[in-house]
């Protein structure tokens, strides 16, 4: 009884702050891996693996997403059986521990293929933990929120995924700037992983002081807690059809819009447009900074006009605008073409000769730093392999562009275009926690809402960088071909959502 009174008096601000901080840290842990995919690929795989290393690293990154639905089932069930508070404390410990350990894994040169295998295992633990975390936090806050303000209060939880990404990018850029590029690529990339243990420690301390959700406490006191949440969620036709509707009509489209607007945008600018490491991250940092308040604006607005059309408008705009936006990215950074007419100066070429591992062949890299009339700069590297056998034919040299920096005006336009994509993210993501919470009853809410959320975000969304990069590597494809995956999924989700979902808001979630 005393505990119930405490629950009531605990202020909603504390509830939001404590839930959001832990969730933010979990997202941070989850995203530093993706933000460092290129460097981790070089550390985990043989040095001559090239594009395979990046794709395999993205596959390990994607594996963390694929297991999220399983984490949703395991921890969702636990949350509906023993309560929200202890379940998401457990997920936090698992996430923090596995992130810290990734920072300690030796590289491929020290332990061979054991390195990617160990990282894969830890990545799977991360995915399981995240699968249990989000549903708990969203449910916990929603069950504390007053009627008519559920969208507003849960939207704070919705900011955490993007702010976690922001924090991860910020820590990476800061660490790299402090250590220098060489030390960062060598060992400094481990620091963002190791730092996580401190953040998780603080968050565990705060969460230990929280009370159980009042709605769940009441349910438990009345003896109405579900005895088998999985069975009730997925074997009961009436509930299962809502799980399917939530997945295909909302979370599937929301997931691809989220990951295209943030992850794929940054990955595309860095890997396809060859933007400088820091510049591609600064673009996303600025865009996120300006767009983040809109999670709360759209979440709050959904309390007044309903959740459905805000989310679906975000998906539709993504379908219509992605290709023109990414076409602009390519056109604005096409320095290979620009230099034919606009080359202002080129530095003396720097020639570097390295031995290719396990062979006697050499790699000659000739790098020239070039400046265009517009002020854009870039490095052009010509790479040629010199075989040890002097009679062997010389392979064709390859020219690679890297470290492109933009003019101020182009830089601002690109930030604006990424901002627009993050704005779409806030439209689809801001109201979705309230939407999901309102679909399902208290006793199986954690389980029922977690599964469609994590299939939508973990599988459909998390696979965006991997599938899009894979599609773009097909022969005959263009750099924009990878976009057909998020466009197709968002379009399908839009149609299903528009036809099948109601726009009404459920007033009570205590039943």
């Amino acid at each position, binding site marked *: 009884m005393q505990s119930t009174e405490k629950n009531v008096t605990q202020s909603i601000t504390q509830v939001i702050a404590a839930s959001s901080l832990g969730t933010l840290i979990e997202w941070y842990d989850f995203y530093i891996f993706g933000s460092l995919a290129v460097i981790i690929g070089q550390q985990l795989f043989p040095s001559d693996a090239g*594009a*395979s290393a990046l*794709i395999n690293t993205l*596959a390990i990154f*994607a*594996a963390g997403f*694929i297991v999220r639905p399983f984490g949703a089932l395991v921890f969702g069930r636990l949350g509906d059986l023993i309560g929200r508070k202890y379940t998401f404390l457990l997920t936090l410990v698992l996430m923090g521990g596995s992130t810290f350990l990734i920072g300690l894994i030796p590289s491929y040169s020290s332990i061979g293929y054991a390195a990617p295998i160990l990282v894969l295992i830890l990545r799977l633990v991360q995915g399981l933990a995240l699968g249990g975390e989000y549903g708990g936090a969203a449910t916990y806050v929603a069950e504390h929120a007053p009627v008519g303000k559920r969208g507003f209060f849960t939207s704070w939880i919705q900011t955490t995924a993007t702010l976690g990404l922001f924090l991860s990018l910020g820590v990476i850029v800061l660490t790299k700037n402090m250590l220098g590029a060489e030390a960062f690529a060598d060992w400094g990339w481990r620091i963002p992983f190791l730092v996580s243990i401190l953040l998780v420690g603080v968050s565990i301390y705060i969460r230990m002081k929280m009370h159980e959700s009042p709605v769940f406490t009441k349910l438990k006191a009345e003896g109405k807690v579900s005895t088998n949440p999985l069975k009730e969620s997925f074997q*009961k*036709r*009436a*509930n299962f*059809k*809502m799980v*399917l*509707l939530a*997945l*295909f009509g909302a979370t599937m489209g929301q997931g691809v819009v989220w990951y295209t607007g943030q992850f794929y945008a940054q990955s595309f600018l860095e890997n396809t447009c060859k933007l400088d490491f820091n510049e591609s991250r600064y673009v996303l940092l600025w865009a996120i900074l300006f767009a983040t308040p809109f999670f709360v604006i759209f979440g709050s607005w959904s309390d007044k006009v309903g959740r459905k059309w805000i989310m679906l408008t975000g998906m539709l705009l993504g379908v219509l605008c992605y290709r023109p936006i990414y076409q602009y990215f390519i056109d604005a950074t096409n320095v290979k073409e620009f230099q034919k007419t606009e080359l202002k100066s080129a530095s003396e070429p720097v020639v570097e000769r390295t031995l290719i591992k396990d062979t006697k062949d050499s790699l000659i890299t000739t790098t020239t730093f070039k400046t265009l009339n517009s002020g854009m700069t870039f490095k052009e590297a010509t790479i040629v392999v010199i075989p040890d056998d002097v009679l062997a034919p010389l392979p064709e040299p390859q020219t690679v562009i890297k470290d492109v920096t933009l003019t101020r005006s182009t830089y601002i336009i690109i930030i604006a275009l990424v901002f627009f994509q993050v704005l779409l993210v806030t439209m689809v993501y801001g109201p979705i926690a309230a939407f999901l919470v309102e679909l*399902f*009853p*208290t006793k199986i809410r954690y389980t029922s809402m977690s599964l469609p959320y994590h*299939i939508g975000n973990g*599988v459909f969304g998390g*696979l965006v960088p991997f*599938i899009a990069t*894979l599609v773009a*590597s*097909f*022969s005959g494809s263009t750099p924009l071909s990878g976009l057909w995956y998020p466009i197709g999924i968002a379009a399908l989700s839009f*149609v*299903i959502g528009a*036809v*099948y979902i*109601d726009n009404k808001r459920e007033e009570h979630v205590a*039943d």
Partner: protein
Amino acid sequence: MNDLKKFLGIIWMLLGPVIIIFLIMQASEKIALATEGIARTNTTLQWSIIILVFIPICAGLVIFGFYGWKGEYDKLPSSSSEL
């Protein structure tokens, strides 16, 4: 609107298997290319993961379509007691 929900239900039921067949065809084409050394990145493992992940999701789409076709979504539950 209910007629549209039912009609689209049939589309979703057909779309599930079509997606899986499309993925299998793509996988066999790309894996064949990879073994010839043309595109080493499209490996069997990667495609197997993609297909294994999407098979249950496509099965879910078929069930969703079936429910739509049967009129299960004509009226959505208005309270938790209906679930």
